[in-house]
């Protein structure tokens, strides 16, 4: 593995002296995790707790005729059960984000009346042991009346197709037309129009290794629940659960500690948490729920599967791209747990990295008898960026342009930054051509011709591909109003509290729920630089606690934003604490606050080493020795809410800034394909990341690597495949192959820094990676097969058998593409 660093060419003038920010300081989290002393949700136990197991539907679509739990309840050690009928009485359906017709979906903690996907929870049983809970679920008798199913989103709106949610009157959850620029003029001006009939972005997710879990307790005296869980967006869970349980949010204490990976997939566990709450109250005992791997695969947070139809691209003879139009068909699965937000979130990156100004997408989302989708690393933008990258490579192949040159010709130029996209998003900074050049250098693009010949001499087809993507971060939640004008969400926030305690300890609490992103470390780096101490002297509390740690409405860890929102809040609170410390020292020394400098763990008068108070003295004075001050000393306790400045986008034109920062990732890969079998290997891989100023480069690189591995997995092996009856064919790690150590190609990483002018530290959110690896692998396969009938890669997921099919019948995919030239 090789790593290349380049210094920024331009830099936002940093006002903060940075000793620790920008350094790869060792992670504060590591020690406990390496010693097996981390505390994950399943590690937490309570006396007398019961274990929950969900009885799940074997059918993808069926009426529930009857449920009989009598036999289960007769068994010794069984504490109780919960059925959909009880849930429907004791809770209200979860609030729906959708406007018409998805607004009518009735979604509960357990299936009520019918089931809509195989694996849907129908009954929950609670027993003394894990084993007994699982055994006893076999004794629950559920009679079903199977209904016809719809698995293929393309059939969901046929009049013949059965309805999942009769209340909606359709399987359409949401639709909306997006159009910016002048499409007619663009196509009139075009010398070539490239048409692609159909493209398909496959269904998969990030399969975090730790499964969803919770330990839930109910306090009968106060009517308050405590949930020790691994939900990664407690702010969202609380908003969903409070109204459903008919309580205020203060009755819901959500606590997280160590979380074993999330990647968006642990945002929508609110139905299961609600079932846990009902059981803890009903049985008057703590209840514990840990999902099984098969249950996760069958029911949790699949990534959005998306079809693109009738894609038309307007191209000038020199390769200038003028615009494109298409229909997007998104498959939400059976329920709308975070959807239909995917129907707008893609538009954060409407033009991808390119300067085309004329874009029209007719977006329709439908519901099918498959697991509900929810955010998954790269959520909704990845699908759209795959489309733009596919368009570029298909246009290049059909019109004879070099894929590198056509990208460079059309990339937004560094001197155009900040760049307003056709839909009013503002790309804050970036240098795409430079990032691409570095990726090409890392992968040895100069030697491609020789390598192609070498592969050929071994009977293999060499392919080269690039994927260029954006990682948009720090959502403006007002974009939800483009989905549903009735919604009141807008802006964003995160909060931090920094205090100096009696013995001089610096303590930070945050609203975030990290899952491996190193928040404790990077927050400590920022605080240390601001108040003048070492990160070792800063304690950052682990995780979210909605009773005892500070938190805000959007608190959580999702959507590439911590380096902006979380660290923005930390910086704000630390700045305020620093001012308080200066003020206190000035009161002690009888000087002005500006005469005090904070350094090396002391507040001291600059240039006078005798006049220095250690942090411990400051903490002790305020907390335990505060007599004799004429005016109140400052509290040495600062809370700061970071709020990015956003406006509400215009609903008519769908115009406005949807995210604050745009990190860049350019991936390049070389593959070798065996033309006999379709088997291929990635033989070289390079990634260049630009996420502005990096607080901890090693942590950034780690996430770049992780995103790369996820993309490679999705490109080659990982898929949630269903049969015609709606049975998931890949419900465990045997059938759903995630990359193993032997699967990973050699990797070279590089970084450039284009600091964001819009954020307190010049940072950008990062980590999702925009699926760039999927785009690069698709491009490389298409390149390799140029010599074998020139098939077009039309699917994001290309297992070996699909490549073999393309080799056998290249015409089948070629029929998908037409070029009309003037």
């Amino acid at each position, binding site marked *: 593995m090789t790593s290349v660093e380049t210094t920024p060419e331009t830099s936002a003038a940093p006002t903060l002296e940075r000793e620790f920010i920008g350094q790869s300081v060792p992670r504060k989290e590591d*020690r406990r995790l390496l010693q097996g002393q981390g505390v994950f949700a*399943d590690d937490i136990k309570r006396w007398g707790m019961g274990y929950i197991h969900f009885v799940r539907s074997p059918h993808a679509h069926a009426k529930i005729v009857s449920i009989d739990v009598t036999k289960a309840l007769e068994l010794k050690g069984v504490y109780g059960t919960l059925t959909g009928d009880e849930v429907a009485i004791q809770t209200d359906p979860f609030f729906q984000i959708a406007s018409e017709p998805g607004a009518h979906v009735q979604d509960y903690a357990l299936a009520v009346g019918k089931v809509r996907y195989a694996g849907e929870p129908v009954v929950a049983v609670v027993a003394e042991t894990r084993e007994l809970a699982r055994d006893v679920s076999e004794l629950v008798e559920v009679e079903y009346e199977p209904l016809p199913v719809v698995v293929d989103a393309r059939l969901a709106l046929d009049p013949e197709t059965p309805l999942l949610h009769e209340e909606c009157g359709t399987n359409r959850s949401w639709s909306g037309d997006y159009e910016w620029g002048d499409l007619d003029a663009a196509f009139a001006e075009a010398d070539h129009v490239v048409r692609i009939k159909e493209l398909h972005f496959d269904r998969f997710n990030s399969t975090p290794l730790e499964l969803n879990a919770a330990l839930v307790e109910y306090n009968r005296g106060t009517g308050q629940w405590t949930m020790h869980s691994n939900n990664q967006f407690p702010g969202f869970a609380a908003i969903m659960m409070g109204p459903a349980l008919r309580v205020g949010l203060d009755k819901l204490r959500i606590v997280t500690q160590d979380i074993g*990976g999330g990647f968006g997939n642990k945002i929508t566990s609110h139905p299961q948490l609600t079932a846990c709450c009902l059981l803890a109250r009903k049985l008057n005992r703590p209840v514990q729920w840990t999902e099984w791997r098969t249950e996760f695969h069958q029911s949790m947070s699949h990534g959005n599967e998306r079809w693109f139809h009738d894609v038309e691209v307007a191209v000038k003879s020199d390769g200038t791209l003028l615009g494109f139009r298409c229909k997007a068909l998104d498959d939400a699965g059976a329920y709308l747990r975070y959807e239909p937000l995917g129907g707008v979130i893609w538009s954060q990156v409407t033009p991808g990295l390119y300067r085309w100004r004329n874009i029209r997408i007719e977006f329709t989302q439908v519901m099918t008898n498959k697991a509900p989708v929810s955010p998954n690393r790269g959520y909704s933008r990845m699908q759209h960026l795959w489309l733009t990258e596919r368009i570029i490579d298909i246009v290049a192949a059909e019109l004879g342009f070099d894929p590198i040159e056509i990208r460079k010709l059309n990339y937004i130029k560094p001197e155009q930054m900040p760049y307003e996209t056709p839909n009013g998003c503002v790309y804050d900074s970036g240098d795409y051509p430079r990032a691409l050049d570095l990726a090409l250098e890392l992968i040895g693009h100069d030697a491609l011709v020789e390598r192609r010949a070498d592969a050929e001499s071994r009977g293999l087809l060499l392919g080269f591909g690039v994927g260029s993507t954006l990682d948009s971060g720090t959502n403006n939640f007002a974009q939800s109003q483009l989905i549903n004008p009735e919604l009141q969400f807008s802006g964003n926030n995160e909060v931090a509290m920094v205090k100096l305690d009696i013995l001089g300890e610096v303590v930070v609490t945050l609203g975030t729920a990290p899952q491996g992103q190193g928040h404790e470390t990077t927050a400590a780096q920022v605080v240390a630089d601001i108040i003048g101490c070492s990160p070792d002297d800063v304690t950052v509390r682990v995780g979210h606690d909605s009773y005892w740690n500070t938190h805000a409405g959007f608190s959580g860890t999702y959507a590439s934003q911590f380096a902006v929102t979380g660290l923005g809040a930390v910086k704000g609170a630390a700045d305020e604490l620093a001012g308080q410390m200066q003020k206190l020292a000035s009161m002690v020394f009888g000087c002005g606050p500006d005469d005090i400098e904070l350094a090396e763990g002391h507040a001291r008068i600059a240039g006078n080493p005798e006049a220095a108070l250690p942090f411990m003295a400051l903490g002790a004075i305020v907390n335990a020795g505060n007599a004799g001050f004429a005016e109140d000393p400052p509290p040495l306790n600062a809370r700061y809410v970071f709020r990015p400045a956003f406006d509400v986008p215009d609903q008519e034109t769908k115009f406005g800034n949807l995210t604050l920062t745009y990190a860049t990732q350019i991936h390049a890969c070389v593959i070798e394909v065996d033309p006999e079998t379709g088997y291929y290997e990635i033989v070289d891989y390079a990634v260049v990341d630009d996420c502005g100023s990096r607080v901890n480069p090693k942590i950034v690189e780690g996430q770049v690597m992780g995103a790369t*591995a996820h993309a490679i997995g999705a490109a080659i092996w990982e898929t949630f495949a269903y049969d015609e009856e709606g049975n998931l064919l890949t419900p465990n790690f045997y059938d759903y192959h995630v990359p193993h*150590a032997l699967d990973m190609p050699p990797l070279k990483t590089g970084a450039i820094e284009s600091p964001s002018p819009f954020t307190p530290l010049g940072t950008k959110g990062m980590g999702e990676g925009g699926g760039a690896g999927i785009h690069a692998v698709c491009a490389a396969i298409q390149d390799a097969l140029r010599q074998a009938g020139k098939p077009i890669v039309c699917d994001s997921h290309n297992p070996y058998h699909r490549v073999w099919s393309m080799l056998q019948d290249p015409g089948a995919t070629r029929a998908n593409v037409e070029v009309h030239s003037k």
Partner: protein
Amino acid sequence: MAEPAKSRTISVEINGDRYEREVPARRLLIHFLRDDLQLTGTHIGCDTGNCGACTISLDGEAVKSCMLLAVQADGATITTVEGLDSNGKLSALQQAFSDTHALQCGFCTPGMLMSATVLLGENPSPSEEEIRVALQGNICRCTGYWNIIEAVQLAAKGGGA
């Protein structure tokens, strides 16, 4: 014919301590470690023996503790992740994991450490390929494995786990 025993008393040595416990015959070794002995450093990430988060050293071999019944461990000597450090001092391999940023969420890490510790015990200077083979039964979803392989190489260079 007598009914098969529903439970049995087993005696195992774990991280230097001797435990004698009566366990249900059907209890998995991983649940015995986590639920009965509170050794929660060893994790569960799948139902099928694929993920390796539950890897421990049993009589010197890396085994997946979700693939054994607790009663099968009777008489065995076991090391779990909790037994790798010496009085709080990280092992060379643990330190190398931190130095190379070979962990993010840390959930797979105990299993990775155990597989790699057993590898380095048997083969103090493994090739990159040998490391990949030794870790192929351990899934990591955060790192892409590159830094984990580097960590094992670093520990090997320093003289072992």
